[in-house]
């Protein structure tokens, strides 16, 4: 089960600030909902975990991340990650190429192209949702990434397309007992931040599956009405 996702997120920060953050794998990982670095093997190899939870079902993948390439000239990064879930019933692999495109002095774009493939139970049962899930995860990633950037002169903006953050807010609004609003938006933002501005501390959590589902449903409706209008 493979999906390719290409996304571009406008950021209200200078390309250099965004690039600085992008190179800090620790910080980048922490922007990934549910992701955690557990061990630095060497400069370019890390071990970590990613958790996903959909309702009662939860999966924790542990695996390795390899930084294939960091190119300051093009402000681009190439990561490879692969792992198996801790019950040994699923596998996942991701190939991510991201770069920062300047867009004036105080704005830039985070452009990501990734291929995600999963095996085992995750593919059998999660396959149908996969592109939707990946889409949501990236939007959350972008939202978190934006949060960690030093605010640009004008009023702070979080990642657009606006779907990203509202999704989360709405999800939280509909499911308050399950997860507080920031659970996803500010997932993985420990207080110890080196490269970026400190933000409200929040416990590291799994990707909230219900928020994901809600986001997917929203996008699906959007898509539906767009189709109608077209």
């Amino acid at each position, binding site marked *: *089960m493979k999906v390719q996702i290409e996304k571009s997120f406008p950021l209200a920060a200078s390309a250099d600030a965004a690039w600085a953050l992008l190179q800090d794998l620790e910080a980048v990982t922490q922007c990934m909902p549910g992701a955690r670095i557990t061990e630095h093997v060497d400069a370019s190899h890390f071990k970590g975990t990613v958790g996903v939870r959909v309702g009662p079902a939860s999966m924790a993948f542990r695996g390795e991340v390899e930084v294939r390439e960091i190119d300051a000239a093009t402000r681009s990064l190439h990561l490879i990650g692969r792992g*198996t879930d801790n019950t040994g019933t699923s*596998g996942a692999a991701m190939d991510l190429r991201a770069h920062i495109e300047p867009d004036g002095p105080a704005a830039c774009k985070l452009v990501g192209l990734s291929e995600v493939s999963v095996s085992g139970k995750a593919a059998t049962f999660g396959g149908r949702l996969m592109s939707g899930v990946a889409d949501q995860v990236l939007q959350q990633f972008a939202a978190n990434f934006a949060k960690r950037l030093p605010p640009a002169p004008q009023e702070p903006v979080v990642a657009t397309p606006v779907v990203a953050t509202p999704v989360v807010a709405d999800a939280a609004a509909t499911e308050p007992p399950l997860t507080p609003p920031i659970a996803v938006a500010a997932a993985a933002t420990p207080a110890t931040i080196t490269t970026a501005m400190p933000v409200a501390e929040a416990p590291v959590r799994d990707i909230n599956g219900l928020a994901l589902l809600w986001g997917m449903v929203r996008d699906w409706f959007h898509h539906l009405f767009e189709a109608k209008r077209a």
Partner: protein
Amino acid sequence: MGDMSDLQKREEQLQGMGTSLLRKEDARFIRGQGSYVDDIKLPGMLFGALVRSPYAHARIKGIDKSRALDSPGVVAVLTADDLKPLNLHWMPTLGGDVQAVLADKKVCFQLQEVAMVLATDRYAAADGAALVEVDYEELPAIVDPKKAMDADAPLIREDIAEKKDVGHGPRQHPNHIFTWEAGDKAAADAAFEGAAVTVREEILNPRVHPCPLETCGCVASFNKPTGNLTVYMTSQAPHLVRTVLAMLSGIAESKIRVVGGDIGGGFGNKVPVYPGYVVAIVASIVTGVPVKWIESRIDNISTTGFARDYHGVGELAADADGRIKGLRFTALADHGAFNSHVSASKFPAGLFSICTGSYAIPNAYCRVDAVFTNKAPGGVAYRCSLRVTEAVYLIERMIDVLAQKLNIDKAEIRRRNFVAKEEFPYQTSLGWTIDSGDYAPALEKVLKAVDYDGLRREQVEKRAKGELMGIGIATFTEIVGAGPTKACDILGIGLFDSCEIRVHPTGGVIARLGTMSQGQGHATTYAQIIATELGLPASDIVVEEGDTDKAPYGAGTWGSRSTPVSGAATAKAARKIKDKAKQIAAHLLEVGEGDLEWEVDRFTVKGNPGQAKTMKELCMAAHQGDLPEGMEQGLNAVAYYDPPNMTFPFGAYVCVVDVDKYTGEVKIRRFYALDDCGTRINPMIIEGQIHGGLTEAFAVALGQQVPFDENGNHLGNSLMDYFLPTAVETPHWETDHTVTPSPHHPLGAKGVAESPHVGGIPCISNAVVDAFAHLGVTHMDMPHSAFRVWQQCHALGIDRH
């Protein structure tokens, strides 16, 4: 004595052949008192859970047991390395290949068995299994069999990469298993060259799974002091399994006991020997305590014997009147990662060469190429003799394609090609001798019953209104009852079968057979055969199967072989007993045997019916002193039956469907099934078998499929996705019959369980395609699910208002 009403009364008391006797086994089944393998609980029993691979193709770089071993209740973790010292990490398969019992250095299909965790209960075992850490290096997987023999195709089977042959002739590629041919290619090609019309169609029999309600499992119990191994298991062929276990383990076969117990459906899925059984047995030998292993539903659908996955190409050549002159059928067979498909040694493609069907086709050629892919191994016969469904599906679809091409009615084209009654026994151009048949009257009876002409008129009106209605016909010939030992063996063992009958002094009878009921009603059917043969009431006849310590050797129950083979053995054994009883009767009545005649339940003296000895009297007499000179006491016999030929049941089916062109939903409005299985033993059981077979045909035609993604991940291995029809979806079945006895079977019986599956699938498919025939559609692949049928409607642009 002797008058009709009295004879009739005595006849009825026997409840023998021809009576719809209620099934003896149902008394316990309907009370929930059947005894299945998971009901077996032995003292000190451990539970085994298998660790399975999430990848379809990967190298195993390491296995870390430590966390599992620390888990509460876990006793041991077995991997291939633990089985090596016993040389049990690989096992022979029924397909002439070998299969990894536990993955040895690499996994070749998703959910392949990698390790077994033994624990004090099944929950602890499952928890332990989740803690075994396996380090995999994923490899590219082959999912599409059409790519298996590409020059750059990944090598799946490193263990046999160098082998030029894996039991069935030369291999052209490391992922090639065998190429099998039948018929005269040159003659077939010539027929095509000179033909007025030819048709060709690519026809897929998708990978499906028999999915019996009870999954596979076993309880293995090795007794160290005695060295005896007892295995309670879900097997359709307990005796063959005992032999395989003896070959595998080196334990004397006399010290191995395999017990079948009650089995919750098999449909072919419970013929092979699976790794889980073997590991459980090894585990019991190693630990010295009983070990239970029971599959989950997902494990069952994902890893045990699947069926079909035949990618076929059908070609017919005919004259302008639609009389078939030539047939060329080929199939690319996806056998998965190990060739563990079940077939007689000399028939690697099963009985595929029955693909000339009910028709007189002078020139025919067929070929099957089997390849390895990174999918579960198997290739069992799902409610059919191996590859018969594939063969019959091809010919019954292709004759419709030919009819459409020539614009000949689909009933008429069959009439024009039927083998005529006087031609039987009929020698097919692919080498079979069809024992008996009478096809035309069967078809006419069905067409009349459903008012075929009226249906066609209705179809014309509906088409004029833009509605989709389809009429499907199948006039199939099955081949069952494997088989003559001169042609059929498995692991060198001939496919004869057996029956041992013991008659007790008071007339009670116990019969033991080498077959194994999985719900077919053997306890009833066999008892009725004996009742008629011996004149003793079926109610007092007990039938036992499945315990290899008790029953005589037999090849088990699959391929509808029980009645054709064991039914015959039962009649033979009963007749031996009857002959002895006759000698005793003659002795007691002081007449010659020639002066006696049989009358329902007794021997009477010709011309003096008052002088008689009932069978009950003779049972007692056989256990007393006053016997003919030199005769031993007792009234027992055992018979082994080696069938001279297969039997060839046939049928004529009609299916009427309505298709919703907006949703693609297919509704079966009417299904009329006429079956001819020769002599009918228990009409009620036959009808039940036909209902079951038609329902499984309905399941395959409209919904069942085991799909994979491009990495070899299963995309439908739970009942959330896999279609198992219930009373809610299943249509109403109308059944009918004709009787054309088999000339070579002692009772004239042919076997029936599979016909409705084999004939039902093409009949439903033909109906669905027929609904689109006027729009130029000649074939649609199964399953005809709403989505797939809607795609056809959409492609034709008829799904819009």
